[in-house]
């Protein structure tokens, strides 16, 4: 089959690779119909996540048709159309039973490696380095899906790929970001980053009862999308001072909750950016946390900082004093997608959410390398690229 593979820093290549085979009794093989490129893929593309190998198949947002089943899959039939959550979860361990699917205790064959870096291992993820298991991803014609009874969600008849594809990751991730904010009536939520995650976080925060939601980015076209499709108020951090503006907008108090939807490759006009770039280039810190620092120092006393932007390792100049002395709560996580698929599917069906607005580009799988370049450099007003296999 054809698959989009990592070929070194800033380089992906669509190559011929063998077709997937059933390895575990609870596997399903999918023929992929749609798959997307995610901000998380850019961290791999840019070479910031360790343990990615030349030839690794990328992609963790995908859906398609079941073409083969392992002997122990009970809930699916060949021919079913399903969308797949990006974390691989067994459904039987204690963490899965608590709803903490992305930290499944059984799904990461490289847990032994990962616990050396993080203390304890996380679960497996499709196409996301060997630290999360060395699983091939879904930017391909076919993919093997472990624990097929636990993850994949059957797509109701009549719904299009565009409507449900983002249940695999970005929509649940943004929803969880808003959920972690514990929004109460009258709350103002600020969202750093107006990519797909940030945009859906604005939508989610309103649906969860926020009074005002403020999106922060530097790309005018993304901020426009946040205003027009998600009712956000916006701040362009290259034109306005973020702290001053947020204070002015919140009566001097600061937003009740702050969402980091940027992650480890933040850009910033401030001096700490130069510092982080140098340290990151010298690999003396793995992540550039300027958006996170800003989310912390701008949050109101006693507020919540919700982190869904991905971080890989270690950061410097972390404002722990601001967190501790001002009674902030930090919540974070790779999304426990399984928890949110069904309820969000219903919200799409009843019209609360129309996820299709973020799609700006459609390309055939063969053109994945062009898609990565465009999405990385935010060219041609790119917000989300969907690849069809």
């Amino acid at each position, binding site marked *: 089959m054809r698959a989009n593979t990592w070929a070194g820093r800033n380089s992906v290549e669509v190559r011929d690779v063998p077709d997937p085979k059933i*390895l575990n009794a609870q596997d399903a093989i999918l023929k992929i119909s749609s798959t997307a490129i995610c901000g998380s893929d850019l961290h791999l593309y840019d070479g910031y996540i360790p343990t990615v190998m030349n030839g*690794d198949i990328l992609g963790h947002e995908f859906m398609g048709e079941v073409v083969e089943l392992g002997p122990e899959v009970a809930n699916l039939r060949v021919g079913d159309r399903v969308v797949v959550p990006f974390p691989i979860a067994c459904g039987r*361990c204690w963490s899965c039973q608590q709803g903490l699917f992305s930290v499944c205790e059984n799904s990461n064959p490289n847990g032994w490696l990962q616990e050396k*870096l993080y203390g304890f291992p996380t679960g497996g993820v499709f196409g996301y380095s*060997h630290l999360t298991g*060395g699983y091939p*991803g879904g930017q391909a014609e076919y993919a093997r899906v472990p624990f097929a009874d636990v993850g994949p969600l059957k797509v109701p008849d009549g719904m299009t790929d565009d409507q449900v594809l983002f249940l695999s990751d970005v929509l649940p991730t943004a929803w969880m970001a808003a959920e972690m904010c514990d929004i109460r009536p009258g709350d103002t939520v600020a969202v750093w980053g107006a990519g797909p995650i940030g945009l859906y976080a604005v939508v989610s925060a309103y649906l969860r009862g926020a009074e005002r939601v403020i999106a922060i980015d530097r790309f005018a076209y993304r901020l426009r999308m946040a205003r027009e499709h998600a009712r956000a108020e916006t701040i362009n951090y290259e034109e306005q001072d973020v702290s001053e503006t947020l204070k002015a907008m919140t009566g001097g108090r600061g937003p009740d909750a702050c969402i980091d939807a940027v992650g480890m490759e933040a850009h910033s006009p401030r001096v700490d950016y130069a510092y982080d770039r140098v340290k990151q280039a010298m*690999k003396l810190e793995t992540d550039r946390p300027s958006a996170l620092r800003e989310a912390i120092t701008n949050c109101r006393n006693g507020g919540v900082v919700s982190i869904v932007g991905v971080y890989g390792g270690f950061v410097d100049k972390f404002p722990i004093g601001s967190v501790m002395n001002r009674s902030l709560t930090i919540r974070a996580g790779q999304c426990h997608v399984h928890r949110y698929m069904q309820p969000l599917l219903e919200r799409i069906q009843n019209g609360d959410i129309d996820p299709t607005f973020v799609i700006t580009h459609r390309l055939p799988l063969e053109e994945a390398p062009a898609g990565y370049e465009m999405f990385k450099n935010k060219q041609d007003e790119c917000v989300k690229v969907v690849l069809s296999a």
Partner: protein
Amino acid sequence: MASGRTVARGLVSFSLSLGLLQVPPPNRFSTWIGVPPRSDRRAGVRAVGARELGAAAGLLAQPRPVWMWSRVAGDAMDLALLARAARSGDTRRDRVGGAIAGVAAITAVDVLGTVLVTREAAKNGSGSRSGEEAGRLTGDKSARLVTAAVTVNRPREEVYAFWRDFTRLPQFMLHLEEVRELDAEGRRSHWKANAPGGATVEWDAELIEDRPNERISWRSLEGADVTNAGTVRFEDAPGGRGTRVHVDLEYSAPGGAFGTIVARLAGEEPRQQTWDDLRRFKQVLEIGEIVRSEGTIGERRIRQRPAQPVGDDA
């Protein structure tokens, strides 16, 4: 004076950052140390990076003499590579000189830390514990003791029953090739295991303690290739969270402490192996099989290959 451990910890962060620097983008690192990137050098720089990461991982896990000596060996490798680079025409001598001075300084710290850690280890028994607790089952005071624990989300009776059938141990203890029962009650059994370097070791074992749902102990009999013994204890995890499994393994390594170090260098670190075995034990009980991925393969020694399906010929 600084303890070996303190020095080792300091080296962890250094190793991690340097390693991360060299693995994905070797070119930039090369330029930084004054060696223009060239395709024949890239592999060298990357190997150095992978080694730094490995050393960091090892040190993070436990500051042990082997890991520390691996750093000293690594320093020698760095110095050799840099010296070679210094001799070739296209390098910036000032930078390479700086890099050599830096590495030489690090080497000094490494040697100091290594000597300290090795001395401490000599006092405490290298890595795995021995002394007081060791020898309880084997009677050998110099035996190595490895302990590990895991929580399994299944009822205690079921977890106990699975372990009590020794013939099933090879399902998750990957260095075990086979366990055969020698009598109907499973009191005596014959064990066959893979030793480092491809050798096979065998022994007969007897059950010396069997308290249903609580505790199982066994011990090798006279004439074993490796004298060894084990105890596994089962208890309810509080709050209905399944069963806690505690394992104590005792063994007299062939070749004593030296044998243990050689086994580690061959990639068979007994402590890591035991923890990994328990992780697989948990998988077998909770999900009925051992989870597999295309990018992580190998039975006894886990290896990484590109995360893409394996072809028919592979």
